[in-house]
């Protein structure tokens, strides 16, 4: 018994020592936000000689962080709503369809989980639709990219909802659309929350799509905004670290609030489906 206890303490100690690999870089970035440029360039775990809270003000004003935040909200919320709403209904009809047609569509959406997007031709498609460098274009591309994963989540969940619900509703005189929107969709709440959170996070963290298709600085979200600010201030590590922390803040806040759903959603692939 005593030996087991000792093992446990050993494990806990090793666990915390290893966590330093994650924690130390963060701590240094955090400390750097309060230092001068010269102090920050040393990257040490020492408290700043004077706390320069002004760095936060400087970065907030210089990098248009407020505007970038609201742009990010637009560029993450709308794709999430679109892909979740569209995919939930599609996955419902496809999962109830056992014919060859249903199997084909299932595979068609599923391939998107593995296949990478070929982004260059999108430029041409958006040009044809007159949507280059617009919020609408970026929102639609991001939404399309979120569909395969949402499909995977919803499709798996429909197996747990009995068909008898559908039949009972129809016998009571409910139409096909009402069946889905007022009876089935409310039942999907747990998956909808998970799927929405993950699509939102994915859109928020995405760098590649806006890099390729959104050039106007007025429309930049937080990530690409940080990229352009980094380009200007590369040598001022105090300011760079401040913009890193401020850009991280919304995501970390979301993680703290909804950790359970995020982790379970990201690991849902572990359950064979």
């Amino acid at each position, binding site marked *: 018994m005593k030996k087991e206890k000792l093992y446990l303490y050993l494990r806990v100690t090793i666990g915390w020592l290893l966590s330093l690999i994650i924690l130390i870089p963060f701590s240094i970035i955090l400390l750097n936000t309060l230092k001068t440029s010269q102090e920050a360039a040393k990257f040490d775990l020492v408290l700043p000689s004077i706390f320069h809270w002004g760095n936060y003000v400087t970065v907030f004003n210089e990098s248009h962080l407020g505007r970038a935040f609201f742009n990010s909200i637009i560029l993450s919320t709308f794709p999430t709503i679109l892909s979740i709403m569209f995919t939930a209904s599609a996955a419902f009809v496809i999962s109830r369809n056992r014919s060859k047609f249903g199997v084909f569509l299932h595979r068609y959406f599923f391939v998107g989980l593995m296949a990478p997007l070929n982004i260059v031709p999108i430029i041409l498609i958006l040009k044809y639709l007159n949507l280059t460098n617009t919020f609408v274009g970026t929102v639609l*591309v991001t939404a399309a990219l979120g569909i395969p994963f949402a499909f995977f989540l919803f499709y798996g969940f429909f197996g747990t909802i009995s068909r008898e619900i559908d039949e009972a509703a129809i016998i009571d005189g409910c139409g096909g*659309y009402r069946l889905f929107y007022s009876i089935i969709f409310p039942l999907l709440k747990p998956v909808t929350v998970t799927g929405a959170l993950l699509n939102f996070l994915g859109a928020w963290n*995405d*760098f590649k799509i806006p890099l390729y298709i959104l050039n106007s600085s007025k429309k930049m979200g937080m990530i690409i905004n940080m990229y352009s600010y980094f380009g200007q201030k590369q040598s001022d590590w105090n300011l760079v670290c401040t913009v890193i922390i401020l850009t991280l803040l919304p995501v970390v806040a979301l993680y703290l609030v909804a950790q359970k759903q995020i982790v379970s959603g990201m690991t849902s*692939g572990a359950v064979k489906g």
Partner: protein
Amino acid sequence: MYYNKIYKKSLIMPAFLLYSILFVLPCVMGIWFSFTNWNMMNMFHADFIGLANFKTIFIDEKQTYISPIFTTLIFAGVTSILEVVFGISLAMLLNNEFRSKSLLRSIFFLPSIMAPLIIGYIFTSVYQPSGVLNNFLNLLGLDALSRAWLIDNTFALPAVMATEVWRYIGMNMVIFIAGLQMIPKAYYESASIDGASKWKEFLHITLPCIIPSITINAVLNVIHGLNVFDIIFSLTNGGPGNKTEVLNTVVYREFSSGRYGLASAVGVIVFVITLLIAFTMQVQLSKREIEGL
């Protein structure tokens, strides 16, 4: 038919159209454009030039395109293996009852929810000549090892790979923890009655039982690894020379210089490699899974 009345096909349409037009169509168009000289000068016009783009890519003395293919494969292979190995180790370490275990899990998982670009910048600071890594090495008296990691010909690629591993271990860890918790406790009890050592328990119980988690992790890691972009773009942008150049940074470079046809061709190569490897791995690894677990 009764069926069509309950399950409206029109409910499929919005998702089908959006996905087809902005995901599938670009991939198909990419294949067509890879055989053309489509470029910035003439957006709406492309001439068929056969295999010329692929000739440029594969038959090239300077190896500007071939070496990124190998770098991508090495990157994906090495990071996947390391992420699985460290992921299992961490999961086994933290799959115990103690008070701080959920806090520790949250800490290790945190990088998985962060934008890769941010992680790239954090590690740009870590790998600076005056950065944390060198400070740490100096502290240990290993001054000789410290260097400017990101512009070092030998160490730039390992440094970039280490960053990707750092980012993704937590993700592997939680999937393995989920897998470990599905193993019936009775297996270990009977093994310890039979006097099996810890190592034997791991080899003959734990490992076979978590093969499904290994499969999913390995496949996800490889897909991520083959499509790496943000991390390399922010850390080294392909340098020094083209030591850390991967396929997706090549796509962006060709795209920026207006050679859309060539960029599409490289995009097609990423597409084909990813699908081929992911499918083969899935099939090969699923064969080893134990039935009924």
